[in-house]
């Protein structure tokens, strides 16, 4: 058999049927569901008189609309209806749901792996573009639209076409204070937000191997910001150890057989990729975005770029619009940008390792007086409990952070956590689009360590100098 990529293996093992034009019916093992992109799919099924193909493949939770303050009920009636619609659909159809108030509730891309519901070799879909996160487990995981959610519910299959393959190889050692988030932003800075369009990206190399599962999830999460529907990392000991003993993980009686299958989930030596991008980990510095697209990113020691130096007219116009929206001057040092709010959370950076890293920076320090709000939103109830057991909540609160309940929160502000017009936020989330965190809000993406450092300083600062 010719050498195969990891993507080839995952793809070919799920093909139910394929047409001559490449249209393929792909079997789906796991379907994650949240309240925003599912109601119309459930309604579509009901109107067509169709039933769920396999209810046990679905794990549901409410995350986008849920409040992060200690309230029992959602104040906004429209949000409340969307969440209660999910509750009703799940109970009516026998779907497992971690509803508000369940200690396992949280961001769908945090709870899937946490529960072992995302396993190597699976196909995983969710009506959410950040489903690419689950590729960290060598699962073929992709975001889908609501029509596709309905299709998977009814047929357990997705109509798809095989993507091209890209290998992003990050070799070498990351410097101190440089994280998985910085790898992701640096990669997007190199290949652009459309660089991965039409591709499945496998992340490899020694720097990726050296990441924890949390770090690998951060990198795969951001694959979609590079335009790629799938991010992938091969299975190794780190993957296997993470999965041991989780609720949906294989039982002891099946564990060895499962591990034997998982050990094959890597690209074969000599497998060909359509595109290979190589990055030296040692050259990556802590990153901060300055614009309204994740590719508008700079090392923290850099400056806001000057549109006048850009020769391409469409790009120049995009930079001018971004600087006007962001209220920034060309050529100003990134470290001179002052912030109003700090958000540590989201499906990119709300796992226990992220919270530990941020807490280590703020311990014994205090949020700058000029910062109006600094908040930490754990990714799930279980992450929150783990952090509290380690005393991280007390570290954050002593430093002046708010310690909130789990949810998507200010990553997109569908609940009450939003920026006011003109407010500037240091955010560990994934998108700095106009209005993403609130109409007129200005988002700068960065790692949890860098967000924590910015909270202390009141402006962007190289976390490596703060730690000294």
């Amino acid at each position: 058999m010719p050498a195969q990529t990891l993507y080839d293996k995952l793809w070919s093992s799920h093909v139910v049927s394929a047409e001559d034009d490449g249209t393929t019916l792909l079997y789906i093992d796991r379907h994650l569901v949240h309240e925003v992109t599912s109601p119309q799919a459930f309604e579509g099924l009901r109107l067509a008189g169709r039933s769920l193909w396999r209810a046990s493949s679905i794990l549901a939770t409410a995350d986008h609309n849920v409040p992060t303050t200690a309230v029992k009920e959602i104040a906004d009636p429209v949000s409340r209806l969307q969440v209660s619609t999910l509750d009703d659909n799940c109970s009516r159809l026998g779907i497992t749901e971690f509803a508000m108030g369940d200690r396992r509730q949280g961001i769908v891309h945090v709870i899937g792996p946490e529960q072992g519901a995302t396993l190597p070799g699976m196909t995983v879909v969710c009506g959410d573009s950040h489903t690419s996160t689950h590729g960290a487990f060598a699962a073929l995981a992709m975001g889908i639209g609501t029509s596709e959610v309905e299709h998977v519910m009814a047929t357990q299959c997705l109509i798809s076409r095989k993507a091209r393959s890209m290998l992003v190889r990050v070799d070498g050692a990351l410097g101190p204070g440089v994280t998985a988030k910085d790898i992701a932003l640096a990669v997007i800075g190199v290949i652009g937000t459309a660089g991965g369009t039409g591709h499945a990206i496998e992340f490899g190399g020694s720097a990726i191997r050296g990441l924890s599962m949390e770090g690998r999830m951060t990198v795969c999460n951001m694959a979609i910001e590079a335009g790629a529907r799938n991010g992938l990392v091969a299975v190794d000991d780190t993957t296997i150890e993470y999965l041991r003993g989780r609720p949906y993980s294989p039982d002891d009686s099946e564990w060895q057989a499962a591990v034997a299958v998982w050990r094959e989930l890597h690209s074969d030596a000599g497998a060909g990729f359509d595109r290979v991008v190589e990055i030296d980990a040692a050259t990556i510095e802590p990153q901060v975005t300055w614009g309204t697209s994740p590719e508008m990113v700079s090392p923290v020691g850099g400056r806001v770029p000057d549109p006048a130096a850009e020769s391409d007219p469409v790009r120049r116009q995009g930079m001018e619009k971004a600087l006007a929206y962001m209220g920034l001057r060309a050529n100003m040092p990134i470290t001179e940008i002052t912030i109003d709010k700090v958000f540590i959370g989201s499906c990119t950076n709300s796992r226990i390792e992220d919270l530990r890293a941020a807490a280590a920076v703020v311990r014994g320090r205090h949020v700058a007086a000029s910062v109006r709000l600094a908040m930490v939103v754990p990714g799930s109830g279980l992450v929150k409990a783990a952090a509290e057991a380690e005393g991280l909540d007390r570290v954050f609160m002593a430093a002046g952070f708010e310690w909130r309940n789990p949810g998507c929160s200010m990553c997109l502000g569908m609940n009450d956590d939003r920026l006011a017009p003109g407010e500037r936020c240091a955010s560990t989330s994934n998108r700095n689009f106009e209005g993403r965190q609130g109409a007129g809000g200005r988002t700068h993406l960065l790692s949890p360590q860098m967000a924590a450092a910015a909270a202390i300083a009141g402006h962007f600062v190289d976390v490596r100098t703060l730690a000294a």
Partner: protein
Amino acid sequence: MQKFEVHQGLVVPLDRANVDTDAIIPKQFLKSIQRSGFGPNLFDAWRYLDEGRPGQDCATRPLNPDFVLNQPRYAGASVLLARENFGCGSSREHAPWALEDYGFRVVIAPSFADIFFGNCFKNGVLPIVLPAASVDALFRAVEAQPGYRLTVDLPAQKVRLPDGSEFAFDIDNFRKYCLVEGLDDIGLTLRQADRIRAFESARRTAQPWLFKEGAR
């Protein structure tokens, strides 16, 4: 779903790259549990001068006169001309729902984000990829000529210009078939239910741990 065969319509140019799904339909409007009614909030933050909230009467809101959709010459446009990486960002199908509800049937761009591109086909909206030079030419033509209309012939895979010239475009056979016929692809897939069942059964035997049910 509406069938799509030949469509002729007024073209509106949206001259910026990387138009994301948050711009197409901002998050506060994703709380609806309906599929329809998103058109008045299409491009909400660019289209209106006030901050949009769900349930407003958009007819009374102040319009941003600088936004291209608000210019009288483009009223009633049904073909959106756009730049690179249109529809990047989230998987929200609310984006094509909003475009369709506004009245768009065609989006032409040099490239689209993958998830958005697929979502359009499910909603009777045809996304057409043309070479950057052709898109540039269309931008120049639309701006130079008020009332500029294009004819999109899906069966022939052609975009016809008013001067009689045409651009060919590619499309997957299956997507074309579903759009031309206005077909529900769930029904088509369920014709293969026996194959799906056989695949599933073999998979359950080989890797039973994939079918484990978690604690309720």
